[in-house]
């Protein structure tokens, strides 16, 4: 299985959640995070001087799914979360050895 960890704009979360649900992906775990991108954050001007603003609020989605579906999930998130502006975020794919449903005890590999 794969855990897809996607850091996105909080404003995009609703759309991503909906897009995933439309394709039948319901399960996910969501965390409020903050982050800084490779650009060293966003650069604002103040009285002529540049100010770097980093560690901006983001939303992280953790979604575990089987290997075959991972690419579809990534695709859904990527297209829905993209605004084209700096700060759209990243998706990381981490291998998961197994997943257990606590209620039923079912184990998925």
């Amino acid at each position, binding site marked *: 299985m794969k855990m897809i960890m996607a850091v996105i704009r909080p*404003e995009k979360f609703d759309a991503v959640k909906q897009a995933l649900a439309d394709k039948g992906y319901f399960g996910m775990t969501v965390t409020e995070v903050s982050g800084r991108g490779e650009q060293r954050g966003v650069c*604002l001007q103040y009285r002529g001087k540049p100010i770097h603003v980093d560690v901006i609020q983001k939303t992280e989605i953790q979604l575990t799914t089987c290997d075959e579906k991972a690419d579809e999930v990534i695709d859904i998130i990527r297209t829905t979360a993209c605004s084209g502006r700096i700060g759209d975020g990243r998706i990381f794919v981490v291998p998961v050895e197994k997943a257990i449903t606590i209620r039923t005890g079912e184990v998925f590999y």
Partner: protein
Amino acid sequence: MAIDSGSTAFLLICTALVTLMVPALGLFYGGLVRKKNIISMVFLSFLALSIVSIQWVLFGYSLSFGPDIGGLIGGLDYAGLIGIGMEDTIVEGIPDILFIAFQMIFAGLSLAIITSGFAERVKLASFIVFGLLWTTLVYDPLAHWAWGGGWAHALGALDFAGGTVVHISAGFGALAAAFVIGKRSGFGETKMVSAPQNIPLTLLGAGLLWVGWFGFNGGSALAADGIAALAVMNTALAAASGALIWMIVSSIKSKPSAVGLVSGALAGLVGITPAAGYVEIFPAIIIGGIASLVCYYALIFRVKKGWDESLDAWAIHGVGGLWGAIATGIFASSALAGVGGLIEGNFMQFAVNAGDAIIAVVFSFIMTYIIALAVKKVMGLRVSEIEEDLGLDISNHGERA
């Protein structure tokens, strides 16, 4: 007459209570916006009070309450509060300076209300310029018309505590401002932009507003007497019926929300504002309840139209104030107001009040639109897209909540 220590005590504390409404409003608004803009909403409220205070003693008071010029505006005779002392020449029993202080906070609060229309996207410097112009060109004339000897006053329009002056002006002003500044980016696309984000903060703000309103309406009696008592009772009842009606109507379609409950209370409070000391208690309950209904549908209407006046100064203060002004013309009791309303068969009073309210609506909408447009053309009203993205807390203030 001599200063009455009881009435003076009352108005002194009411001034404090109305001042409490300023941070209360900031927190109320702050809880409705995204986390990245909370600080900016509270900042704007404090700022509004601060700049208006200075404007008020410099010339705002004089424009509002100075010697009438053609029914339209006050003269500058009292600019800088020249010659104002501690006697009670304006209101019997109350030191003049206290009356001016009490009115000053009203003016500040009105500008704070209007920040709803600018939420999450206004440039700080532009807001300051806008605020000074708005207070001078919209608020001060309206205050003069209603209370300072202007035409509405002369015609006998009834406005107990500022239904037209404060609520219509700020509510319709906020709508105009929202039109000029444009929608927030992402508005309509993502729920997050329009859903309240920190409801406990909003409830805290609403609770403090509720309490402060006792000073707002009660203090407008300008004496600690039976009228003040009635105004406070009516205020409490209108809030209660407003809250209950909103809860009931809104629960037809969805679960009754806490934001809804307090919105209803605020609608009731706005509705009773112009009527507080002029009507009996049952009319007060009715006015509060209908205010809640009207504001609820105004809010639904705004959402449908996709207007981004999202903290609903328009739906609550504007529409509620309009209804309140009309309702005062309907329910005014001659025993209390000196003149009866429509239910006492006095169509004239109804017409005067309704006419006055409509003129206030048109005037404040158009004037605010023009001012906002002028500021926009000259210096821009709105932060850059990237600043909006980051949130005003960081962009305008370099802070995080």
